[in-house]
C-alpha cells in the first residue's frame, strides 16, 4: 500500500515537472517579446542576451507618433477595417451556407459537398496569379474592398464545422414550427439562429483572425505603403527595429489573446463539433 502511495506521489511530481516545462516553453517566447517591446533602445544588438538592458515606454510612444517611415496607426486601421468587414460578411455567408447544407436535401447537394472537398485540396494560393489578374480586370488592386471581397467570398468554403453543429440540433423543433405555418426562412431566423450562438461566435472569431494575421494576399494586392496591413508592415521591419516590431506585435496580439481567452468555451465546442462530424 505504501509503495503505491509513493508511486502516486512520484507520478504527480513527474507530471507537474513536465507541465512546468511545457508552460515555460510556451510562455517564454511571449514573455521575451513583451519585455523587448519595453526596451529603451530599438536594435536587437543592444540586448543583453534575451532581455533588454534598459526599460522604458518609449517604443510604444514612438510606434504611434513616429509615423514617417513606419505608419503603424495607419496599418492598424487598415487591418481593423479589413478584418471587421470580412468577419461580418464572411460569418453571415458561412452560417447561411452551413445551415442550408445541413437542413435541406436538394438535387446537387452531394455534388456541392464533394466539390468543396476537392477544391480544398488545391494549394491555397495556387490561384493567386489568377486572382491578381481578375482583380486588375475589376480594378480592385490597391483597394481594401477587393481584399474584403476575396476573404468573405472564400469563407463559405469552410462551412463543414458549422454544418456539423447544425446537424446536431434536433429537427423536431423545426417541424413543429413548420406545422404552425412558419416558412423555412422564419424557421431559420426565429428558431435556429438564437440557439446557434456558440457556433456563430466561433465562426466570427475565426473569420476575424484570419484576415487579421494574413500576409500573402495583402502583400500581393495592396502595393501602396498607405494600404499596408499590420502583417505586411511588421514584415518590413529589420533587426535594428526589433523593439518596434515587438511593440507592434504585442499591440495587435493582446486583443486577440484576450478575445481567445474570453471565448475559450465556444472555441473548444466549435472545434470539437467540426472534428467529430467532419
Amino acid at each position: 500500500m505504501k509503495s503505491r502511495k509513493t508511486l502516486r506521489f512520484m507520478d504527480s511530481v513527474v507530471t507537474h515537472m513536465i507541465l512546468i516545462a511545457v508552460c515555460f516553453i510556451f510562455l517564454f517566447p511571449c514573455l521575451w517579446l513583451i519585455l523587448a517591446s519595453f526596451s529603451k533602445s530599438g536594435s536587437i544588438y543592444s540586448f543583453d542576451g534575451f532581455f533588454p538592458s534598459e526599460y522604458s515606454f518609449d517604443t510604444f510612444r514612438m510606434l504611434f507618433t513616429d509615423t514617417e517611415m513606419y505608419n503603424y496607426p495607419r496599418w492598424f486601421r487598415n487591418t481593423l477595417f479589413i478584418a471587421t468587414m470580412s468577419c461580418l460578411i464572411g460569418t453571415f455567408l458561412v452560417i447561411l451556407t452551413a445551415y442550408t447544407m445541413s437542413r435541406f436535401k436538394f438535387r446537387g447537394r452531394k455534388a456541392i459537398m464533394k466539390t468543396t472537398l476537392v477544391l480544398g485540396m488545391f494549394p491555397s494560393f495556387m490561384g493567386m496569379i489568377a486572382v491578381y489578374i481578375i482583380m486588375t480586370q475589376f480594378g480592385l488592386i490597391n483597394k481594401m474592398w477587393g481584399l474584403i471581397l476575396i476573404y468573405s467570398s472564400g469563407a463559405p468554403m469552410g462551412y463543414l464545422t458549422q454544418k456539423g453543429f447544425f446537424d446536431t440540433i434536433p429537427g423536431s423543433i423545426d417541424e413543429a414550427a413548420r406545422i404552425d405555418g412558419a416558412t423555412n426562412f422564419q424557421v431559420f431566423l426565429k428558431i435556429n439562429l438564437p440557439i446557434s450562438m456558440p457556433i456563430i461566435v466561433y465562426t466570427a472569431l475565426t473569420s476575424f483572425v484570419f484576415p487579421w494575421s494574413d500576409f500573402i494576399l495583402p502583400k500581393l494586392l495592396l502595393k501602396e505603403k498607405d494600404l499596408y496591413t499590420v502583417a505586411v508592415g511588421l514584415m518590413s521591419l529589420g533587426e535594428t527595429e526589433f523593439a518596434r516590431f515587438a511593440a507592434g506585435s504585442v499591440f495587435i496580439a493582446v486583443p486577440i489573446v484576450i478575445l481567445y481567452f474570453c471565448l475559450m468555451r465556444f472555441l473548444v465546442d466549435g472545434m470539437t463539433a467540426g472534428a467529430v462530424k467532419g
Partner: protein
Amino acid sequence: MRIKNRTENPQKSVRVSKANKKKMQSESLCTAVKNGGKQVRASMCLMGLGQLLYKQIGKGILYLCVLVLAAFYFVKRGFADIAGLFTLGTKEADTWLGIEGDNSVVMLLMGILSVIAALCFILCYISNIKDVYETQKRVERGGKPATFREDLQQFLDKKFYKTVLFLPILGVCVFNILPIIFMIAIAFTNYGGTIVPPKLVDWVGFNNFVKLATLSQFSPTFLKILNWNIIWAVISTALNYFAGLGLALLLNKECVKGKALWRAFPVLAYAVPGFITLLGFKFMFSYGGPINQIITGMGNKAVGFLDIDAKWIARIIGLLVNAWISVPSIMLLATGLLSNRDVSQMESAKIDGANAFQQFRHITLPFVLFSTTPVLISQFIGNFNNFGIFFFLRGGLYIDGYFLASDTDLLINWLYNLSINNNYYNIGATISLVIFVITSLISLSIYTGSASYREEDTFR
C-alpha cells in the same frame, strides 16, 4: 444521419443511383419537350414567351431580360472570348508599328469566364422550359398559373436553399473555382519565363509535366524538395498530433489541480497570430539574436541557425517552431474530445485490472484516433502545404544545387518562388497540380482506410 433525412419527402428518400437520377432529369426535359403544348414550344423558341402566354408577366419579362442580356454579351464579346480560348491570341503586339496586340493571359481568363457564362445560360434556358411545362401540368390539372408573387414567396420557403446559396456559390466560383481552372489551364501552356504578355502564349499539352520530370533545370530540385516535403509532412504531423494528445492527457490527470490555469499557457501560444510567432522566432535565431548573443558571450563563434549551410539545424528548428504553433490547437481539440469520452468504459477496464498504459492503448487511443481522423487528414495537408514556416524563417534563400529554392523549402515555397517572384508561371501551375494529386491521393486513402469511414456508428 437520422436527423438529416427529416426534411426529405418519402419518395425522395428512396436512394436513387446517380445514373438513374441523371436519366430522370433528362427524361423530365425530354417529356417536357415531347408533351409540351404551344406555350412550351413558344418558350423553346424565345425564352419567357411561354410564361407571357400564361400571363405570368413578371417571370416572362425576367426570362426575356436574361435572354437579351445573354445575346448582348455573346455578340459583344462572348463568342470572341470563346474563340480566344483556343487561339490565345493571334496578333502579337508591336510597339514599332503601333500594333496593340492580344493579351493571351487576359484572353485565357475571359475565355474561361465566357464558357462558364455559356453554361449558366444553358441552365437558365432549361429551367425556362421546365418552368413552362410545370405550369402547363398545373393548368391541365385545373389549377391556375402561379402568380409572380407566389413564385417569389417560394424563394423564402421551398426554394429557400436557392436563395441562400446563390451568393456563396457565386463568390466561390469567381474567387476559387475560376482561378483554379485558370491555373490548371496555365499548366498546359508555355506562359512564363520570357514568354509573358505582350508576347503570345500557346498551348503546349503535357510538355510542362515532362519538363518537370526530365529537364535538368527542374527535375533534381523537384525530386529533392518532394522528398523533404513528404518527410516534413509525416514527421511534423506525427509530432504535433502526439504531443498535443499527450499534453491533453497529462492535463486530464486527476492529480493535476487548476487545469484552466495550466491550459492557459498553450492557449496563449495558440492565440498569438502566426506571423508574429514566426517573425519572433526568426529574430530569436538570427545572428544578432539572443541565442547567438549568449553563445558569443561564452566565447564561442556565432551559429548561423538559419543560414545557407544550416540544412538540418534549420529543418529541426522549423519542426519545433511548427510544433510550438500547432500543438496547442490539437491539445484543445483532444481536451474537448476527452471530456465527451464514456467514463464507464475506463472504470470497467480498471476493475478488470488494466493498467494505465493498457487503458490508454486500448480505450483512449482508438477513441481519439477514430474521432480525429478528419483532423489528422487536414493537419497532414496543412503541414504538407505549410507555407509560412520556411517563408518567414528562411525566406528568399536560393542554394546551390537547387533551382530557385533552398533545402528547407517545401513544394509550396518553391511554387511561390517560381511563380510569384520569378515569373515561371507554367512550372508553378504544374507543381500545384502535382501537389493537388499527392494530397488528394493521400487524404483519400487515409480517409477510406480509416475507422471513421468504415464504421460510421461505432462511437455514437
